[in-house]
Each structure stands twice: as C-alpha cells, then as structure tokens.
C-alpha cells in the first residue's frame, strides 16, 4: 500500500477534525446528524466495493441494512443478548446476504442485477412489515439497548458519536487498504475486462462474491449500529428511495475512491439540512442540485481534486464493457 505524505496528512487532519468537532456542538440534533453521517459513510464505503469498483449495480442496500438492523435488534430485545454479540451476528447476516446476492451477480449484470437486488429489498421490506409475530410488523422493534463497555452504557449522543467514530475509522481504514491492494485492483479488473481476469488465474466468481460480501457486511454493521443508537426501528423507510440515496452518495463523492465515498456521504447527508431554510422546497432544490451533479460532474467530487485522468479512463473502460 502506497501512502504518500499528503494523503496521510489529510487523513490525520480529518480524524482530528471529526474528534474535536463535537466539543463545540451542544445541540443534540446536530450530534444526531453527525452520527447519521458516520453510519452513512460506513454504508457508502461498503457499497463502493461492489458498485463503485466491481461495477455491479446494487440497489438493495435498504434490504441489506434493515436485515442487519433487525438481526441485531431482535437478538437484543427478544433474547437479551449483549449488543456486541448482536453486532457480530449482524456481520454473520452480512456474510449470508453477500453470498446470496453474489450468486445472482454471476449470472446477471447491469440493470438485470439492479432489478434482482430491488426485488430482494422489496421482499425483505414486505416480510418485515407483515411477519408481525417476529418483527413487530409496521410498528417495528422498540427498546433496543445501546452498546456498553465494561458496564458503561453508551447513551448520550456524544458518547455514541465517539464510539461509532472509532468503529467507522477502523472500517474506513480497512476499506482504504482493500481498495489500494491487489483485492481492489481485482475488483476494478472485473469491471474492466472479465476475460483477462480469468486468464490471469483469478476466479471471477470468488472476486464478485467477495465484493458483494464486503458491501453486505458493511451495510449490516451500519444497520446494527443504527438500531442500537436510535433504540427503535420499523420497516417503512427501507424502500427503493433509501437504497438509491446511497448510490447517490457514491456517485456524488466519486466512485472507486474511499475519500470520495466519505465526502459523498457527508455532503448528501448534510447539504439537505443546510437547505432546510427553504422549508417546503428544500428537497426539490437538493434533488435538482444532485441531478446537475450527475450530468455535469459524473465522476464525482474527487475528480475536482485529483485531476480527471483516471476517472475519465474509468468511465470509458466501463462503457466498453457496458450492457
């Protein structure tokens, strides 16, 4: 892994900023937003493996996220299991989903895969809403306990923020390592030229399933963190719109680049809040801004910083292997 000094400095500065920012914030709502940002970053960084690098369109994030949230919260509330063990169970659920969704990706691609993942996500949502005995139906699950370490419960937003910040940094660091290693190159290679990957002695199937599994595990972990933070969940929010939002973050930030993913997650979570002063119109205005971004800056915010070369090539390569 090549880490040049500038990017290491930027990373340290970003972490320092993330660590001291809450000290100047007393507003609980703002802290809540910052926790939401952390959770979204984890999801987007995960989605980057499959949709950003490997080029497999995953529109089922809502389903994966809610499976993680429900696994964790049902184990915690129904069986009284320690939240940390629930989190590990959510990771296990991520593995299962990753394998399960990775398999279709071997057979179908492009919009067909997108439709498969949408189908999966919708089935999850309908089951969560209607298996009332297990999931609490539309009312959802309440009273989900927070994480605790050595008897100390993480209850205030500030405590939770710092705990989740640590988890997020670990996950982002690993994502960065993966993206800039032979694994990340293999993901990108699958998007660029599958035949050459096979001829290079690499099993495409295992690479795709690995990418899907990583994406799923990141999303289920985020789901678990979310559930143990807010304390209640219900299925109504986890529809296609929700999944799309993460792909928007991915595209706005810049596909393929971990710093881009982080930036995208921050922007797409916070900018609508900045536009709140427009009241009724804020979401419309935000949607128009995102549409303009997609059309005029399809390679994301990172392309503004690092020179367009690589991203353009990425685009062209993908087009050559498109549909």
């Amino acid at each position: 892994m090549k880490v040049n000094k500038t990017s290491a400095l930027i990373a340290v500065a970003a972490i320092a900023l993330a660590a001291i920012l809450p000290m100047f914030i007393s507003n609980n709502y703002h802290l809540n937003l910052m926790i939401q940002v952390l959770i979204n970053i984890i999801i987007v960084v995960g989605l980057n493996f499959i949709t950003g690098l490997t080029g497999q369109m995953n529109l089922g994030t809502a389903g994966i996220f809610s499976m993680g949230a429900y696994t964790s919260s049902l184990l915690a509330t129904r069986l009284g299991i320690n939240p940390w063990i629930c989190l590990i169970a959510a990771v296990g659920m991520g593995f299962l989903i990753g394998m399960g969704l990775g398999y279709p990706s071997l057979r179908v691609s492009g919009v067909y895969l997108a439709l498969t993942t949408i189908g999966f996500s919708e089935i999850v949502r309908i089951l969560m809403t209607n298996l009332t005995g297990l999931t609490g139906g539309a009312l959802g699950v309440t009273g989900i306990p927070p994480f605790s370490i050595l008897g100390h419960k993480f209850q205030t937003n500030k405590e939770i923020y710092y705990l989740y910040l640590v988890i997020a940094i670990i996950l982002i660091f690993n994502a960065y390592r993966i993206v800039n290693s032979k694994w990340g190159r293999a993901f990108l290679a699958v998007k660029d030229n599958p035949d050459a990957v096979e001829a290079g002695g690499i099993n495409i199937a295992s690479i795709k399933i690995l990418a899907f599994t990583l994406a799923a595990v990141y999303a289920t972990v985020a789901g678990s963190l979310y559930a143990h933070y807010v304390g209640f969940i219900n299925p109504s929010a986890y529809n296609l719109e929700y999944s799309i939002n993460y792909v928007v973050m991915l595209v706005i930030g810049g596909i393929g680049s971990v710093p881009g993913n982080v930036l995208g997650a921050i922007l797409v979570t916070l900018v609508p809040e900045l536009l709140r002063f427009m009241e009724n119109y804020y979401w419309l205005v935000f949607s128009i801004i995102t549409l303009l971004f997609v059309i005029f800056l399809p390679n994301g915010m990172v392309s503004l910083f690092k020179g367009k070369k690589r991203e353009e090539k990425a685009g062209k390569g993908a087009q050559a292997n498109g549909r």
Partner: protein
Amino acid sequence: MADNREGKSILTLNHVTKRFSGLVAVNDLSLDMKERTIHALIGPNGAGKSTAINMITGLLPLTEGEIYHEDTKISGMNAHQIARTSCSRTFQNLKLYRSMTVKENLMMGNMTDRKQGFVPFLFDIKNANKEEKLMNEKADQILEFMGLKDLAGEYPANMPYGKQKLTELARSLMSDPRLLFLDEPAAGLNPSERVEFVNIMLKVFDSGIDIFLIEHNMDVIMNISNYITVINFGAKIAESTPEEIQQDPVVIKAYLGDRYKQNMARGASNA
C-alpha cells in the same frame, strides 16, 4: 505424419473437436508441442486457430478430446484453473484493464501466486505490505525487461498500439509462466513495432518460457518458430519445421497458394 522430435511434451492435444451447433470449427485436432520450442499454429482465415487457442486456455469448452499441459489434464478446467498450471496468454484484441495504469495492469498478472488470502490480508498488515512490495518489485523488473519502465504510470488508452501489446505481454509474464500462448501477437503492428515485438518474444523464449503462438504474418512465423502446425477448415493438414512447411505443396495450395493467386490477380487487375 512421422514425428521424430526429441524432448518432453509440454502441450498435447488429443483428437480435439469443437462444434458450434452444426458448424465444426475444429475437427479432430491432435498436436504435440515439445519443451523448449516456439510452436506456431497457422492457417487461413476461419481455419479455427482462435477457437483452438480459446479451448486450450479454457475460454471455450471442448466438444470432444483431451488437452494436457505436461502431465496435467487441463481440458474441462476453468480458465483461471488452467492459468494456475503456469500457463499464460495474450489476446488478439487487447484485453487490458483500461482504468488502471500499466504497472497496475502488470500487478494484476500475478495476483494468485502471492498466496495471502483475504482474511489474513485484513489482520496481517505487515505481510500484506510485504506482498504488495514484492509485487511492485516484480512489476518493475518486468517493465525493465520489456523496456516499458518510463510508461509505468501511463494509462493504456494513452499509448500507441504497439506499447499496449507489449503491456499485455508483460502482464502475462508476471505469473512466471512455463508456457505462454500468444494470440496473433503481430496483428495491427507496423513493421518497426513488429521487429521490436519479435525481439522481445525471442528474449522471453530465451529466458526459459516456451511459446505457443497463432499468427497470420508469415515473416514472423518463419523467422521465429521451430515447429509449425497448419490447419484448414478446422483440421490439421500439415505439421513440420518452417523450412519443410514452406515447401509443402498441400500448405502452399491451401494457404500460401491461394493468397499468392489472389495477389497475382489483384496485381493483374491493377495493371
């Protein structure tokens, strides 16, 4: 056809046949490639050369027959499994990774012979970094060997076609293959690029790698190969040394003859 060549077989095809719903692309093809040779498979357009190389490297399944790499049966394996028997190949239409630099392209070439799995990668950062460093050094070595060093950070799309072909060849060398398959290596190259490519091919051969190639360009074939198999309409029509192939009336009729006739006809009509 009497085969009195010495040495160990490195690639053996036994009665290999490929049918595409009725069309027989390769018909009962048998051949035996010896160690330390540059073995060429030639034939007119549509003779089934590409089908043959794609079957050998596992991109197409066989209809009938068996293929051995040394003593390992490779027919029936997947492409990536065959590649792991230390075979490597290039493609007729370049298959480079367009969103990666030349060096990153190379570093994809030997992903599998560095054995660290994904889970160890996550936890053993030290070894992961060591591996990455080894891959880097290996890529540098090969770039040096191929004379591509100053293009290491370039993207394939920004380079001339000849350099792209060299990059693909370099990538196929990354896995330290024993046997290298080249699919029309000289196609699309201009004469000076062709000379450069032939020299590098010979250099690769001298470094201990056996080469099996498909080629259209007669100059290249006659200059570098030790042994030639000629196929037409999917079936073998001749097999011998370059000198004998050039004299073989069957080959001249099927391959060279037709072309010369065409050329003569074209010359006549132009005149």
